[in-house]
């Protein structure tokens, strides 16, 4: 099993007709993902390499049975795209786009939560989600992940996620699902959402968590792990030596007012029984030990 998406998941792409959407949409299809539709009101009735394009999310859903959307719309149009997908009743909206204004994120997160509780948002500014061997939705290179299990991965960072997938593959360790929640201030899906799903997934036996400075999501995750997780967790936090007050690439990665430091996050996780590595390789090695002991 996997969490959130698998081989039966049908995906539509908002922005499939753009250069990024087309590139990754076709790449995801090549991986084996059921890429069933694109949406573009100006190009309804056309197709992208055989994938039909519809005028709205509702039409695309009605015609294809898609339950998940992957959003490659430029930042100014993301709010409208997410709300359209939620109104159409999709279960999961994966927003790859970076540079979305924080006010928009705060608005559509709360709007969807209140009016469309059946819809989960992942991202914005995330690499997407991959259940190796089953479905790859987003920009992760599928070949760096080994299908199967027993490890689930949840991460705020793109390249560090790839690093983790790759190191586990080199150690011949498979991954059930890898979720990139993104580095923005209002992520639609939290660490806790993913930890909860991994805890409930029988094929996931251990979880790797990759965090970074800023906010308090890792501390909240640690609290959840302490109280609700039976499965072992390893973790890595990037930005131990980041200077305060500077945004380290991601909009959400900032230590401000002495809050959101890597040290505080590492301590909270360690106190919750998580094995915390000092660098990505060490976190990978810790996971190898955990898997050997399962």
């Amino acid at each position, binding site marked *: 099993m996997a969490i959130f998406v698998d081989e039966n998941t049908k995906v539509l792409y908002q922005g499939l007709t753009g250069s990024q959407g087309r590139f990754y949409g076709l790449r995801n299809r090549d991986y084996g993902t059921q890429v069933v539709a694109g949406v573009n009101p100006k190009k309804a009735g056309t197709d992208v390499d055989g994938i039909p394009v519809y005028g709205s999310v509702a039409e695309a859903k009605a015609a294809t049975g898609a339950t998940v959307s992957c959003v490659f719309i430029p930042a100014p149009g993301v709010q409208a795209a997410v709300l359209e997908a939620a109104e159409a009743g999709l279960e999961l909206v994966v927003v790859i786009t970076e540079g979305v204004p924080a006010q928009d994120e705060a608005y559509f997160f709360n709007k969807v939560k209140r009016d469309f509780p059946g819809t989960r948002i992942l991202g914005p500014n995330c690499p997407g989600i991959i259940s190796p061997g089953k479905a790859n939705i987003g920009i992760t290179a599928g070949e760096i992940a080994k299908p199967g299990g027993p490890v689930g991965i949840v991460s705020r960072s793109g390249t560090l996620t790839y690093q983790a997938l790759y190191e586990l593959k080199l150690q011949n360790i498979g991954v059930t699902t890898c979720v990139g929640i993104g580095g923005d201030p209002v992520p639609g899906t939290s660490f806790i959402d993913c930890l909860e799903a991994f805890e409930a997934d029988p094929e996931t036996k251990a979880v790797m968590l990759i965090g970074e400075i800023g906010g308090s999501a890792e501390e909240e995750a640690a609290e959840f792990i302490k109280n609700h997780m039976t499965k072992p967790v390893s973790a890595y936090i*990037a930005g131990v030596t980041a200077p305060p007050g500077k945004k380290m*690439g991601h909009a959400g990665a900032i230590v401000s007012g002495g809050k959101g430091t890597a040290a505080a996050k590492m301590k909270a996780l360690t106190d919750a029984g998580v094995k915390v590595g000092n660098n*990505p390789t060490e976190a990978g090695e810790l996971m190898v030990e955990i898997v050997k002991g399962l």
Partner: protein
Amino acid sequence: MDLLEYQGKQFFASFDIPVSPGEAVTTVEEAVAAADRIGYPVVVKAQVHVGGRGKAGGVKLASNTSEAREHAGNILGLDIKGHIVKIVWIESASDIAEEYYASFTLDRAAKKHLGMLSAQGGVEIEVVADENPDAIAKIWIDPVDGLTEEVARAWVLAANLNPAANDGAVDILLKLYRAYTEGDADLCEINPLILKPTGEVHALDAKVTLDGNAEFRHEGWEVYDATQVRDEREQAAHDKGLQYVGLEGSVGVIANGAGLAMSTVDIVNQVGGKPANFLDIGGGANAEVMAGALEVINNDPAVKAIFINIFGGITKGDEVANGIVTALGRVKIDSPIVIRIDGTNAEQGRAILAEHESDMLQSKSTMLEAAKAVVELAK
């Protein structure tokens, strides 16, 4: 993007928040002329992106032309915690009956907007929060509901301001919330928010951070960008569109992805080195971006060795290696480079680099080995 006080006040004024009339100037002569026009007494205020300017002598009251000249002369060029004052704001002095605090920001844990209001203003809010947390009235606002007048009034009552300030405070808070949301700010703070003896409520200071991601829907934000404080390296990187943060050490860092770049800075520290910078070249590391990044790093005189750390995902290792080789053909680099390429097609990438290896260019297969090698070279 942090605004200077006078920019924040102009931003507030565009949402009808009452602020003192004033002028921003860069020379003593302009300061005197502005003060004469505004009418005495005036306050001469240093415009810097750092707190604590009052204690540093950066805020002075002037009652006449000669005092305005004296204060402007002292404040312009003043070094406040490493920030040199280049602009002063001259504003009409206000009579103050009471000082309050008001702000809006995003509470990332609650995923709602957080409003804070306190009758104890004019001091750092962190100090109030530590010593007397009950003195801060907080509300969490769902962005879908916004801030209604009814909620704002209840909030103001909860803060126990002087009753004479209540109506004015409600009015300003509603406008400040609009400035925060419609103006796309990450932070809007008024400290102090003052009650004048005449009963008016007024923003005596302005601290505003704008969300750079929203620049596409606001005109005129370039002027704010122009007054951001960046060192030469940061300015050069900014001009090339690179995500760069200047640090104090001697190991130049280039990586793809924010997380990996942070991680690279960390690992250099862990093996006993000091990174000169954080630089994320993003997912698609082509030759042009790599050349630009190398140029920025190379122009930093503190850099003694360079660490390029790439994980090939979408961008394959061989493409990255070719990009680096092409970039090295374009930019003459003075410091030795250690490259670590891993991930998709890493073997091919390393094979390409192997043909170019020398004292000035070496390739390592893991982050840790590469970090140790580059730190050794930087010694």
